[in-house]
């Protein structure tokens, strides 16, 4: 491991300048380590081997926030990479930074690379396109929340593992039964704001924020204190009080509890597949995210999490041509299908999804298509296209704090969400001012 790392370092520092004399170099900064990092490196290698005009140099810059920070700091110092990976939460910041980024549709048009924006899945593309329908960044890794079921834990508590869990009403009844059957951890979640507020709102077709969730302008206000959201969080708060919903932390801490077999139900990203399938020593199921029967237009469609690739301003024309070629390579059907099957991330083009289905992957790995179906079941509405809010990383922090107030019983769901709205709106006004 160490040797290969040193080798890779040597290769990237010693060999690339030599190669760059003949080839145009394209810098690509990303946030992946471990298995995902290896897969990205393999994609880059394949691209470099497939042609001789360009060489893509990939580097890991820390987690999502750190990568975005590195990109911003580099831009301020005039040292920015050509391609920067930015998580979906940073999308609004990137879109507002007109002078720092070059929209992907422009890069593609100038480079002459094959590019058809209609090939991308609507719900994925919608997140990263302007209101005029122009694609601003290239969707790279996208996932959506689903419900993971520990069938053994269900059976052990005397609950039929095939119980219908498509609605929260049914889940509520199942949680009662699990608790009564002696299950210590009936329900656990990861990424609470993303799943139980952002996706919840889209799935029930109720607004999360005004101005089409921020797509239509910077003068947006949070609307997460609406009736539907408060009702859901009230129910979750009651489950937390009764020990049916166990809170483990703001990020994906709950994953450890679920993978060890401790918990029965787990709401988590579809990209949790890699970890769960390799670690779980029990029989598990993937089910669609539950919805409240009769609330809003549920089930509408869920929205994505993950990251997209942004092309930064300030480089030479032939380098942009190289960047365009690379992005086009990444969206090609074979590369996407392999990525989808290896990681549990969604295929970003319909063609890659079809190819995966045709290869029999979904039959061999049941449940891996739940996320795809759930995202594409309906044409996205203005409430379910995604979110585009400035300072959203901080706003999520505020939402996390307020949700903790509900779980601990210090606040009612209405009080907590009213407070989240008030505090979040103040940050949105600051963002509006900064980007005037």
């Amino acid at each position, binding site marked *: 491991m160490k040797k290969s790392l040193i080798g890779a370092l040597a290769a990237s520092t010693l060999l690339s300048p030599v190669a760059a004399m003949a080839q145009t170099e394209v810098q690509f900064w990303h946030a992946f380590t471990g298995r995902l990092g290896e897969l990205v490196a393999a994609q880059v290698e394949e691209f470099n081997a497939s042609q001789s005009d360009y060489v893509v140099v990939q580097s890991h810059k820390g987690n999502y*926030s750190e990568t*975005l*920070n590195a990109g*911003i700091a580099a*831009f*301020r110092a005039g040292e920015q990479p050509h391609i920067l990976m930015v998580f979906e939460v940073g999308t609004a*910041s990137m879109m*507002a*930074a*007109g*002078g*720092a980024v070059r929209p992907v549709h422009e890069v593609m048009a100038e480079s002459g690379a094959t590019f058809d924006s209609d090939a991308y899945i609507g719900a994925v593309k919608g997140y990263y396109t302007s209101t005029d329908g122009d694609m601003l960044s290239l969707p790279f890794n996208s996932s959506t929340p689903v419900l993971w079921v520990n069938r053994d834990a269900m059976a052990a508590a005397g609950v039929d593992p095939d119980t219908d869990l498509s609605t929260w009403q049914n889940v509520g009844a199942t949680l009662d039964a699990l608790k009564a059957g002696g299950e210590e951890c009936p329900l656990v979640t990861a990424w609470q704001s993303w799943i139980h507020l952002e996706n919840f709102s889209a799935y029930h077709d109720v607004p999360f924020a005004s101005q089409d969730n921020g797509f239509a302008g910077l003068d947006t206000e949070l609307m997460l204190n609406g009736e539907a959201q408060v009702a859901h969080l009230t129910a979750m708060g009651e489950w937390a009080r009764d020990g049916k919903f166990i*809170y*483990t*932390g*703001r990020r994906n*801490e709950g994953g*450890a*509890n679920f993978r*060890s077999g*401790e918990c029965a139900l787990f709401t988590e990203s579809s990209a949790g597949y890699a970890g769960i399938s390799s670690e779980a020593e029990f029989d598990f199921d993937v089910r669609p995210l539950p919805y409240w029967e009769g609330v809003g237009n549920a089930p509408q469609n869920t929205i994505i999490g993950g990251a997209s690739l942004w092309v930064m301003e300030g480089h030479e024309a032939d380098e942009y041509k190289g960047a365009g070629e690379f992005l086009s390579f990444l969206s090609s059907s074979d590369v996407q299908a392999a990525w989808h099957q290896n990681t549990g991330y969604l295929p970003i083009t319909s063609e890659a999804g079809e190819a995966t289905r045709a290869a029999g992957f979904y039959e061999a790995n049941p449940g891996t298509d739940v996320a795809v179906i759930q995202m594409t079941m309906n044409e996205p509405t203005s409430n379910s296209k995604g979110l585009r809010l400035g*300072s959203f*990383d*901080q706003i999520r*922090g505020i939402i*996390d*704090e*307020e949700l*903790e*107030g509900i*779980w*601990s019983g*210090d606040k009612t769901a209405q009080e907590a969400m009213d407070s989240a709205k008030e*505090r979040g709106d*103040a*940050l949105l006004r*600051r963002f509006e*001012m*900064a*980007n*005037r």
Partner: protein
Amino acid sequence: MEKRVIFRGWWLPALLIAPQVFISAVFFFYPAGQAVWQSLFIPDPFGLSSQYVGLANFEFLLSDKFYRASFVTTAVFSILVTLCSMIPALFLAVMADRLIKGSGVYRTLLIWPYAVAPAIAGVLWLFMFNTRVGVVSWYLGQLGYDWNHVLNGGEAMGLVVVASAWGRISYNFLFFFAALQAVPRSVIEAAAIDGARFWRRFWTIVLPLLSPTTFFLLVVNIVYSFFETFGVIHTITSGGPQQSTTVLVYKVFSDGFVGQDLGSSSAQSVILLFVVGLLTIVQFKFVEKRVHY
């Protein structure tokens, strides 16, 4: 009897203080000046545009009741960190000082934790108190105590205090130990001959003689708890649950480096600078009077 050296001319003294002035200017005055300047603007993250807002950043902060509440959190946190890092250090130093054999080994072992980076110390403590796999939380569970710092603010505060203070105990130990070695043996022996027992000698002779060191450590530890603890807090609680461990410096860090809000982050550092400056003046004015050099 005071000796004074009189320099003729100005270039030699200027030359002698130049390195210190230079270092202060580059590493303190310049960045501090930048912070003050930036606190008057709301810039976008990429530095493409910037809105002059006067004191609006300060107004925004001081009208935020959560920001005001974090002053109280910071005070509680700093007092606890200072006490938890100084009292055990003094105790350990006194004990190590009494040893005749093997004090070198104790000393080395006691200094080790100081070499652990704050973020790693944070992860270490987080593991021990992890609500699911933590060793300590498991024992507490056996004793019938349900440890859950993920939702219990008091427990979260306790955990970040212990994690922040732990590494500092070594640092404080080192200073206390050196100071104890400097206490003249003859004074102690005289007291012993007069029949004073160990603890009596400690309270009436040793502790007063340690007062310059104690005062120095008090200032240094308070500054530490104000400025250098965000790594530990970031890894253990990220300021939660709710806002129970959001101290001022953590908010500077998270607003600036997570939220990309450089205007607010700068304004917060300016406020923090004033608070710590004020605190240090108070310490030198009032506490130092009770120090015997």
